[in-house]
């Protein structure tokens, strides 16, 4: 087996009209055969499965056992947790200055003695870390490498699709009609977004605990997305992002249009996908009834809507009684499922189908929201989709006549 690393330019941020300064990296594991049966994107969630050693094991295992090219892509803002491996760069933590001051106030109010000069925030932090019996909560922002920010879903999905096109153009030998995406939690969500944005390109999706739409705490810095513990400090973290919620009309406003393009179960958009696709994608999903991060209700709705649109869908719903300590280690979000076991369980249930992908078809997709229209077009020879986001043309809206108004 051979492992190869590539870098390429990521999909430009067409919602905010900005190019990308940080390249996308990917690691590709190729089986020892002339022609692989297909390609798998292993898309980690935000947790430990992003660990570089674990990722390598998963890639090598799937490539060897299933004769598939296996790819890990460091897509837009994928590296956003400081406690994970740093193979794709470091995530830094910016502590909010006011929270340091608040922590100092808490220290004093609890009887703590200030017996050293405090000239800057580092002096305060050193003081607070002296007494481990006192605990402090500080607000912090996670800064991914290369000035990336939390876009949530769209750019990460398009980066994975660009990675696929890049590998095809590089001449990697695999069945291009058998592209599988596997991921848990956020990784599974990205997999569904890839299908939404390129419905003829993905043959199968395997997800565990994937949510179906934007998780607000990931895009609004006021909420805590992730707790990081360091001694007696707990950092309540959120990833840096450019969205705002107070100025409608600005490109950075995260309004209904932004939410709907990121919603994998919005039926108007599912209709667009179904119309544009040959409905070859097979969905294999497993979800817990007590998942507190990703709604089991919305997951069941996703199953029902995809089925209604003609897709081959299987959702395994598990509860506490299904925890077996092997495949399912808990009923919590993620269920402790190892990706190798997840793949072994569901990949054999999928069939390979001869189908042209979206680049070969020159697929054009238009997803409309209340005010904005998202358009994507795939062209041979281009790794990126032509993607635009523009206001819906109101010139075609008919002006009501006086009699219509009167009535």
């Amino acid at each position, binding site marked *: *087996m051979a492992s190869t690393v590539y870098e390429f330019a990521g999909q430009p941020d067409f919602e905010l009209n900005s190019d990308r300064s940080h390249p996308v990296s990917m690691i590709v*594991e190729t089986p020892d055969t002339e022609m692989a049966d297909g390609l798998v994107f292993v898309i980690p969630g935000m947790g*430990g499965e992003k*660990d570089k*050693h*674990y990722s*390598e*094991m998963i890639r*090598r*295992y*799937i*490539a*060897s*056992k299933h004769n598939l090219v296996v790819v890990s892509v460091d897509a837009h803002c994928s590296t956003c947790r400081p406690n994970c491996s740093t193979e794709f760069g470091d995530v830094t933590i910016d502590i909010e200055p006011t929270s340091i001051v608040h922590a100092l106030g808490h220290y004093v109010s609890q009887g703590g003695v200030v017996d050293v000069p405090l000239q800057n925030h580092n002096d305060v932090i050193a003081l607070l870390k002296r007494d481990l019996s006192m605990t402090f909560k500080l607000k912090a922002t996670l800064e991914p490498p290369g000035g990336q920010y939390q876009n949530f879903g769209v750019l990460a999905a398009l980066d994975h699709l660009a990675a696929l096109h890049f590998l095809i153009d590089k001449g990697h030998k695999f069945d291009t009609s058998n592209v599988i995406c596997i991921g848990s939690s956020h990784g599974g969500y990205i997999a569904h977004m890839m299908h939404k944005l390129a419905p003829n390109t993905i043959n199968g999706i395997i997800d565990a605990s994937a949510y179906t739409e934007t998780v607000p705490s990931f895009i609004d810095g006021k909420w805590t997305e992730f707790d990081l513990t360091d001694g007696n400090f707990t950092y309540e973290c959120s990833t840096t992002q450019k969205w705002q919620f107070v100025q409608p009309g600005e490109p950075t406003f995260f309004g209904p249009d932004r939410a709907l393009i990121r919603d994998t179960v919005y039926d108007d958009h599912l209709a667009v996908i179904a119309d544009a696709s040959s409905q070859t994608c097979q969905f294999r999903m497993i979800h817990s009834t007590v998942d507190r991060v990703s709604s089991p209700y919305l997951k069941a709705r996703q199953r029902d809507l995809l089925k209604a649109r003609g897709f081959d869908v299987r959702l395994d719903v598990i509860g506490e009684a299904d925890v077996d300590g092997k495949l399912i280690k808990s009923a919590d979000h993620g269920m402790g499922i*190892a990706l*190798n076991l997840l793949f072994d369980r569901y990949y054999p249930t999928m069939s390979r189908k001869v189908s042209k992908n979206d680049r070969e078809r020159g697929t054009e997709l238009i997803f409309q929201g209340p005010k904005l229209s998202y358009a994507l077009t795939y062209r041979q020879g281009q790794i990126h989709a032509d993607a635009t986001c523009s206001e819906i043309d109101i010139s075609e809206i008919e002006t009501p006549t006086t009699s219509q108004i009167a009535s």
Partner: protein
Amino acid sequence: MKANSMTTAKGSHSPDTLARVATILGGELACNPTGITAHTTADDVDGWDSLAHARLIMKIEEVFDVRFPGDRLFDLDCVGDLVALVNDCTRAGIVANG
């Protein structure tokens, strides 16, 4: 470390390889290598979860200069299986980057 469970190792394993694997395991998982036997399983050692397992495998490959077959990476029930895999790869000349 928890009490050892009796798990039967697959394949061959030598005392020398076992001692070296135990030393690596002790270093990676902060446990006493003298308590590790061929029958020791992940359940017997605190902290031997899937991420630690991955780290351990990579470290063993590095130290022994071998590259394990991908399809056997998760097919390891006990330390003895790991030792047997090292010996199999060493005998077969499956070296890293080879």
